[in-house]
């Protein structure tokens, strides 16, 4: 009871001098489910001043999205706002009638959602959808609305808006759709824009463009922005103030710069330190800081501090529930330790427990390669996917997914594969794993050409090459128990002889990936995303491979879980001498884990170099752009950094540009770039790049 009052009290003392445009006081949103009441948002207070940019950060399940939906009253049964006030320009949204809500939505507050693919109506032209949002509020005529739509699209950075307006959403890429969504959001010049993970589904280069656009719109229209994200880098880029949420509560609030450099809540501290930094790589420090455990059960929140169970700084008083208290003007935290004036120290990286290798988990003897020997060779690998013909006599069109890639992977190394979506990195992984057959070229694994081998011929090699997939929800058969999933390859390859041996082996595998052997009896849906990814890794390890292809294994996970999985993969590599082909779109992670990095652009290699050199001194202009687009969770660094926004979108892989494929977006392209495709040449020791003017773009 008492802490409720405290929150309400602090909520009124707005940290900014101006009257806030949005003042959320003690908001409570609950889901009435069959299992009980889930307190998704449990007493959240914050305010936004006119023209301010506020970030809300937290892991999935922290209640940040539910809070955002509550602000617009967009929740449906069984979710309900059961308490609190949402004062928008002094009027309480919670009390509004349906009529008033409609008037407010879109006009006063606009919202942009995460998934640009589903947030536009696919059967209506862009013009209709844009004009509609302006017309319903009855301020303009249809002609004016259309004119304004064109202007807005142009403002949002869409080229040829006159033509774009007559298109259907499916003709646009994800980034373009997000621009359309923003245009729609801004069509009535709202005083507040709520953006819920607006860039999560986008590539880094496109993300950088959208973030820049958000910052510009904030400046030009003085629109306040509430940006919700799990990525502190994104927040640091746009927001001046941050609210950190955990288990339905605000745990810390303050100016972005201060929070990022000096977090005052252990959860914020953990969030900041779990993310590898692209600008601050410490050689030799391979393991990331992680916190153990998972967020508390939302049906049954602990009575004390909700973070206490996972907190490395726990004290006796944490059994009591701390209130969100101001420790300095503008800075609030919900932690007994820092409220008492203590600092949170810089983290010491954990050292992995000494590996206890079970005899049965050891790898095949005899044929084992020594470290550094060549394990996988790709020679001019090509994969084209034919498209359905438009007409019977029409020209056969193909997607040039992978178009002539050469790559060697040596025993024991980690090769990172990066590039925008559509660059062919997943296709290349599937060609190497021989899920797909290459159209041309050869894949040589352990000296054996497997490019045209039948599945039966490859089967013996399957025991040496395994794959971990991106989506932890789709990569495990939902109708098999974990024990069956892990036992199937063991029995199929005759690795274990008796059921008892299989069981024992499954227990070992689960131990190795940090799960309890009891997990074997349960089904995948009973596990969280991170745990599923561990099961996926255990399945890959079951046949004792020496080479693992990891196709974006962490991109669907929260940052802390990402760090746990990265640490696990590093452990396993050191323990079993594994070789990794690690595919990711997160460059900071790739830099952290990889020895060498391959940059793909539209099916071709742009650059291959040792990780340190690639990030310190990229030779290909595209690599330079990619690195510059990664947001850094440090407002100070972010301000000093020279921004180099890469313009435009990747061209279509159906009809790629002649010559150098990057030339259409390249600032230093010249005549020769359109005529000859640059070969991959070693410009500096170990550094290969496919560019006529390698290293000339700074």
């Amino acid at each position: 009871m008492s802490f409720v009052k405290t929150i309400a009290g602090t909520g009124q003392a707005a940290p900014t001098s101006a009257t806030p445009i949005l003042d959320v006081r003690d908001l409570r949103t609950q889901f009435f489910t069959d299992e009980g009441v889930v307190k998704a948002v449990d007493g959240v207070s914050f305010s936004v001043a006119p023209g301010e940019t506020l970030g809300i950060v937290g892991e999935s399940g922290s209640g940040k999205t539910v809070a955002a939906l509550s602000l617009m009253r967009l929740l449906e049964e069984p979710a309900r706002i059961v308490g609190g006030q949402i004062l928008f320009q002094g009027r309480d949204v919670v009390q509004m009638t349906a009529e008033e809500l409609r008037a407010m939505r879109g006009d006063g507050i606009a919202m942009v959602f995460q998934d640009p693919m589903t947030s536009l109506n696919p059967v209506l032209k862009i013009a209709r959808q844009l004009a509609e949002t302006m017309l319903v509020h009855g301020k303009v005529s249809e002609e004016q609305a259309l004119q304004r739509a064109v202007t807005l699209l142009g403002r949002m950075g869409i080229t040829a808006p006159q033509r774009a307006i007559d298109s259907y959403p499916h003709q646009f890429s994800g980034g373009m759709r997000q621009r359309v969504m923003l245009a729609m959001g801004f069509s009535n010049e709202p005083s507040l824009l709520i953006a819920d993970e607006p860039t999560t589904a986008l590539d880094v280069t496109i993300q950088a463009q959208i973030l820049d656009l958000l910052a510009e719109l904030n400046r030009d229209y003085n629109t306040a922005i509430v940006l919700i994200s799990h990525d502190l880098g994104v927040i640091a880029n746009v927001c001046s103030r941050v609210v950190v949420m955990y288990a339905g509560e605000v745990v810390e609030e303050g100016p972005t710069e201060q929070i990022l450099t000096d977090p005052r809540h252990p959860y914020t501290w953990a969030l900041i330190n779990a993310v590898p930094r692209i600008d601050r790589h410490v050689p030799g420090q391979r393991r990331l800081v992680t916190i153990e455990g998972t967020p508390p059960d939302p049906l049954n929140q602990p009575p004390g501090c909700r973070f206490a169970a996972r907190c490395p700084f726990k004290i006796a008083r944490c059994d009591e529930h701390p209130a969100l208290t101001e420790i300095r003007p503008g800075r609030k935290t919900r932690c007994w330790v820092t409220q008492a004036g203590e600092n949170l120290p810089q983290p010491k990286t954990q050292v992995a427990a000494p590996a206890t290798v079970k005899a049965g988990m050891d790898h095949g003897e005899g044929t084992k390669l020594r470290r550094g020997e060549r394990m996988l060779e790709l020679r001019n690998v090509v994969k084209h996917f034919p498209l359905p013909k438009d007409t019977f006599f029409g020209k056969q069109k193909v997607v040039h997914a992978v178009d002539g890639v050469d790559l060697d992977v040596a025993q024991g190394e980690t090769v990172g594969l990066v590039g925008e979506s559509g660059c062919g990195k997943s296709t290349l992984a599937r060609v190497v794993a021989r899920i797909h057959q290459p159209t041309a070229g050869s894949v040589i694994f352990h000296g054996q050409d497997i490019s045209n081998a039948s599945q039966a011929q490859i089967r013996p090699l399957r025991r040496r090459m395994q794959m971990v997939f991106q989506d932890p929800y789709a990569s495990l058969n939902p109708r098999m128990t974990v024990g069956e999933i892990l036992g199937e390859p063991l029995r199929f390859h005759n690795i274990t002889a008796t059921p008892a041996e299989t069981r024992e082996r499954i227990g070992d595998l689960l131990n190795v990936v940090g799960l309890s052997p009891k997990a074997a009896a349960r089904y995948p849906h009973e596990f969280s995303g991170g745990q599923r990814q561990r099961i996926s890794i255990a399945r890959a390890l079951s046949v004792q491979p020496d080479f693992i292809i990891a196709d974006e294994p962490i991109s669907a996970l929260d940052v802390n879980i990402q760090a746990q999985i990265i640490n696990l993969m590093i452990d396993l590599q050191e323990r079993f001498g594994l070789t990794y082909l690690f595919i990711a779109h997160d460059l900071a992670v790739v830099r952290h884990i990889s020895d060498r990095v391959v940059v793909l652009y539209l099916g071709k290699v742009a650059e291959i170099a040792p990780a340190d050199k690639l990030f310190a001194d990229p030779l290909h202009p595209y690599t330079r752009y990619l690195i510059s687009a990664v947001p850094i969770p440090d407002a100070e660094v972010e301000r000093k950094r020279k921004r180099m926004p890469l313009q435009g979108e990747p061209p279509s892989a159906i009809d790629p540009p002649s010559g150098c494929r990057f030339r259409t977006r390249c600032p230093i392209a010249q005549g020769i770039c359109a005529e000859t495709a640059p070969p991959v040449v070693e410009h500096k020791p170990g550094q290969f790049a496919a560019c006529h003017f390698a290293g000339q773009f700074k």
Partner: protein
Amino acid sequence: MSLAQATAVPVSIAPVASKRRRWWRRYGLASLGATIILAWILIAIFAPVLTSHSPDLVDVTNRLKPPSAANLLGTDALGRDVLTRLLYGSRISLTTGFVVVILAAIFGTLVGGIAAYSRGRIEEIVMRVTDLVLCFPPIILALAIAAALGIGATNTIIAMLVVWWPKFARLARSLIIVQRSQEYVEAAMVVGLSPARILIRHIIPNSVGPLIVLVTLDIGNAIITFAGLSFLGLGVIPPTPEWGSMVSEGRELIEQWWVASFPGLAILSIVVGFNFLGDGIRDWLDPKSRRR
């Protein structure tokens, strides 16, 4: 705390429905459907126990009697007890419904699975054959085939099977194509499992949900079609009690409404039962409609 909040904030929303009411809203109709079907199955099994009359006993002196204590649903033109024939009739209706749909589902799924898994020319041939069958109105085609084969329950079932399998083949093919590209199937490939094992252990178990829904919804459909064929004089050989032929026998007896209406109501109830159950299973299998 929650109480204090609830009074402090006048949020005007109706109280949350109780757990039981929500269950009823979600599965009420489905359990009603299941009850109807279960009742008919029990009737089919225990028909001889439930009535003292014989379904085939002709008693011309007692013909076309309205419902009475002796004949609860009256008698037909040959003096047979309508209730008794109705109870016995459930046997043939349920049997044909189940047999046709389950055989068609097994055959169709197999053919569709092979088509989806082999792709290329085999798929093309299979799918064009299904197109060929599907382009005729089902009852007309079944009528033609049944007429060619001759009257009789077995021949009618064969005729219906020919018409029935293609929709299962189509559904199974599309379901399996969707599952084929799932990551867990790719994972099974990478682990090195054989295609047969992947199909049987991984793909089919994950595709059966919608097939079960179609099977349930379709049994009602098959019962109607069979009754329709019997009404038209195909199907069972008289005097076997069958609902469709009973309706047919009573179609000109407007005054003696009980002869045709009670078998009609029986068909209605069983079809509605299967539809409710099928809808329920679909909702239960669809995670999107499950919450709420």
